[in-house]
């Protein structure tokens, strides 16, 4: 796909663009808070959540080059672990999040190492098989209450700051609170990914992707690094699952194992630009609103709930695969920007 996947160097965007972007991201929910439209705050929350998951997926899919179609099992493991830690042992949400990440990584290592012998398509199918095995387990396991789900209790009367520290927002500021929670997690994930990209692991993942046999010949244990990459992804998904669980205040197997959690992060990464650090962010910003617009336009009409958004996603995937496999980041943005700037003076003169 990409001709050269050198670590991102800010992709040539000017400092002004960076500051503007950061300001928009920080201030985005405030107008909606004042106007009482929590819906848009939730959209922002979902964009950040999926961007974060997309960055996580990029580690196994983009850098290590292994197609994982079942990452939602770790989303579910994270949500359930955190919920159980919070409900049964009273752990604070952030501690529970760390616990969820650790448990998820351990389980990931255990179930992934055996299948690292598989390559390409075979590995992809194995991840689907794992997801399909997880579904009846989720629906029938008594520890997690099966399909009845787990409910997360929220103590009344906490303030906004208290909410940020415990992920519990009993009042009106829930939308705002979860937006900033997810923003914090997103930034942490982004910075961690950037560090990994430039580290030995980053090099080794890409070596395994480009030429597994060649990588082994220069001393890289390809099976180990496939596992490490997937475990990193599993930790990110577990963190995402935790936040989602506390937001939804309940964890149901069919919700946390839903196909959307498999497809959206992966789509965000590929549509944005596979293997590029900011790819999943661009992808999430473009794709999530589509789903939300569909929900609002179709409302409760005859086509509502009929997966129209997924039809559109499917079409987008096919178009990207067939015509722009390197994603949106690979479009000649700087060329277009230059052409716009070049034309402007001429238009001004006329």
């Amino acid at each position: 796909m990409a001709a050269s996947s050198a670590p991102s160097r800010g992709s040539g965007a000017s400092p002004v663009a960076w500051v503007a972007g950061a300001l928009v991201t920080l201030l985005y929910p405030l107008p909606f808070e004042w106007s009482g439209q929590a819906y848009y705050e939730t959209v922002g929350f979902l964009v950040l959540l999926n961007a974060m998951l997309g960055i996580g997926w990029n580690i196994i899919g983009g850098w290590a080059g292994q197609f994982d179609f079942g990452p939602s099992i770790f989303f579910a493991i994270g949500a359930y672990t955190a919920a159980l830690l919070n409900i049964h042992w009273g752990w604070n949400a952030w501690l529970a999040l760390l616990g969820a990440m650790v448990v998820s990584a351990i389980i990931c290592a255990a179930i992934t190492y055996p299948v690292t012998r598989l390559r390409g398509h075979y590995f992809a199918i194995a991840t689907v098989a794992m997801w399909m095995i997880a579904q009846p387990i989720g629906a029938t396991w008594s520890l997690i209450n099966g399909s009845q789900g787990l409910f997360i209790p929220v103590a009344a009367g906490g303030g906004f700051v208290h909410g940020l520290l415990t992920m519990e927002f009993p009042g009106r500021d829930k939308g705002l609170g979860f937006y900033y929670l997810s923003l914090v997690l997103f930034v942490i994930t982004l910075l961690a990914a950037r560090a990994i990209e430039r580290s030995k692991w980053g090099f080794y993942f890409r070596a395994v992707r480009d030429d597994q046999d060649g990588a082994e010949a220069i001393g890289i244990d390809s099976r180990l690094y496939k596992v490490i990459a997937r475990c990193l992804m599993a930790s990110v998904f577990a963190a995402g699952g935790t936040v989602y669980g506390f937001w939804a205040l309940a964890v149901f197997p069919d919700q946390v194992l839903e196909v959307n959690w498999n497809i959206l992060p992966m789509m965000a990464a590929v549509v944005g630009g596979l293997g590029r650090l900011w790819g999943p962010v661009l992808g999430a910003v473009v794709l999530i609103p589509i789903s939300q617009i569909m929900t609002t336009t179709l409302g409760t009409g005859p086509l509502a709930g009929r997966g129209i958004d997924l039809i559109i996603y499917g079409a987008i995937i096919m178009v990207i695969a067939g015509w722009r496999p390197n994603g949106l980041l690979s479009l000649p943005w700087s060329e277009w920007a230059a052409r716009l700037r070049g034309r402007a003076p001429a238009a001004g003169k006329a």
Partner: protein
Amino acid sequence: MAPLLQVERSTKRFGGLVANRDVSLAIEPGEIVGLIGPNGAGKTTLFNCISGALHPDEGRIVLDGTDITNARPERVCRLGIARTWQVVRSFGRMTVLENVICGALRRTGRVAAARARALELLHFTGLAGKEDVAAAALTLADKKRLEITRALATSPRLLLLDEAMSGLTPFETTAAVELVRRIHSELRLSICVVEHVMEVVMPLSHRVVVLDHGEKLTEGPPAEVARDERVITAYLGDRYRGRV
């Protein structure tokens, strides 16, 4: 002095085809050994068994006292064997520098140190100035050079070169031979070279091993081997026996 690499009666079969039969070979520290033989003689199979890409069905392979017969490729590399491939390989989507860094990380573990070592080696092998070129965009000669640089970055004691000169122009071939000589004299490695180009392998090697139809035919100093009738027959066929 004990040999660095000892191959003892290695046999490898693919279904009904016996690619290597009872092949024994030793490489002493500091030697350059040429491995020659007609196409299909089993040279690359032997390399694959030594480097761990394949495992022999019978026999043993010992590196400096350690049995590596069934070791995985990454362990063989860690123990000190590096190789290049008959069809040149590289991490196409990474730059030249990044490719070599991957090799150097075997020894240092820290990217900054690996980068420094990689730059040194690129300078040594003549790729300085091309650090940021995507590996897939290089010419064939440069790709081979990159493959060798990357292998050297793992600090091997034994370097296996599989037809490193194939596909090169005469000018490029001379440069490549020069590079191999310098690697041997300055980095003090043992080298085993599989080659078809006689003008290259004979002057370069201290000793030559000849394979034919999966078996070792003979071995010895290049001049002797070149005059050996069985070797001539293997390459040129029965009609030329006794005539050359």
